[in-house]
C-alpha cells in the first residue's frame, strides 16, 4: 500500500511536467486547448496535500526542477547515487517519504 501523500505528490509532479511542456508539445504539432482545465485540476489536487509537504515539494521544484524522482535498482534517478540497502527496503514498502541523501529529492521506488 503506497503512502497516499507520496502518490498525490507524484501525480502533482506529473501534472506540473505536463503544464510545463504544453507549449513545447504544441510546437510539435499536438493540439493544446485545455491548459486552464489542467491548471484547475492541479490546484484541486494541491489543496488536498498537507501544507508542509506541498511547501517542501514547491521548494525542491524551484531549486532542482524535479522534486520527486523514481528510484530503480536502488539508484536515485535524479542524481544517480545508490541509496543504502536498508533505505531501499523501507522505501519499497512506501509507508514513508524518503529523501536522497545526496540531492535532497523525494524518492519514489518503482521496482
Amino acid at each position, binding site marked *: 500500500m503506497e503512502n497516499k501523500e507520496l502518490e498525490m505528490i507524484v501525480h502533482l509532479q506529473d501534472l506540473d511536467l505536463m503544464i510545463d511542456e504544453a507549449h513545447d508539445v504544441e510546437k510539435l504539432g499536438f493540439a493544446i486547448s485545455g491548459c486552464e*482545465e489542467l491548471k484547475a485540476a492541479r490546484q484541486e489536487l494541491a489543496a488536498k496535500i498537507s501544507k508542509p509537504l506541498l511547501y517542501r515539494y514547491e521548494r525542491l521544484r524551484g531549486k532542482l526542477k524535479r522534486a520527486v524522482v523514481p528510484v530503480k535498482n536502488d539508484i536515485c534517478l535524479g542524481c544517480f547515487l545508490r541509496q543504502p540497502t536498508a533505505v531501499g527496503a523501507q522505501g519499497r514498502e512506501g509507508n514513508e517519504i524518503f529523501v536522497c541523501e545526496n540531492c535532497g529529492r523525494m524518492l*519514489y521506488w518503482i521496482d
Partner: protein
Amino acid sequence: MSSVNLTNYFHSSLFIPEMKATTKDEALEELLNLFVREKLVKNKRLVLAMLKQREKLGSTGIGKGVAIPHGRTTAAGDVMIAFGKSSKGIPFDAIDQQPVHLLFMVIAHPQEKSNEYLPLLGSLVTTLKDDSKREQLMHVANFEDLLAVFQGE
C-alpha cells in the same frame, strides 16, 4: 528530427498487432497494460490518470488515423514506445474527427538529463506525417515489420 533512432524505443513486448479496444479509454488502458505487465511503470492507476488528463489538455489524435498518447511520469524509469494497430479504427476525438488505426503510446521518466522525450515525440510525429509510412504501418503483422518501417529514419 531524424537524428532520433526510434527503433531503440520499441520492444516486442510492447506491440499489439490488432487491438481489442473500441473506445479511447479502452485503448489507453490496453496499451498501458503492456507497460504494467513488463513492470516498466509502477502504479497503473496514477499513469492512467496522467494519460487521461493529458487527453483533456488536447487530444493526442493528430489526424490521418494516428494517435500518440504520451506523457512523462514519475512512476516510470525509462522512455519507451508501445505500438498498437486497429484495423477497424477507434474513436479518439482526433483533430480530424476520424477514428485512429495507428496508436503509439510514449511513456517517459521525469528526468531532465539526456532529455530524449521531446525529440523522440517530434521524430515520431515527423515520420508519421509520411503517407507511405502510415500505409506500411497499416500492414505490419509482427514486430519485425514494425521495426522495418522505422529503420533508416
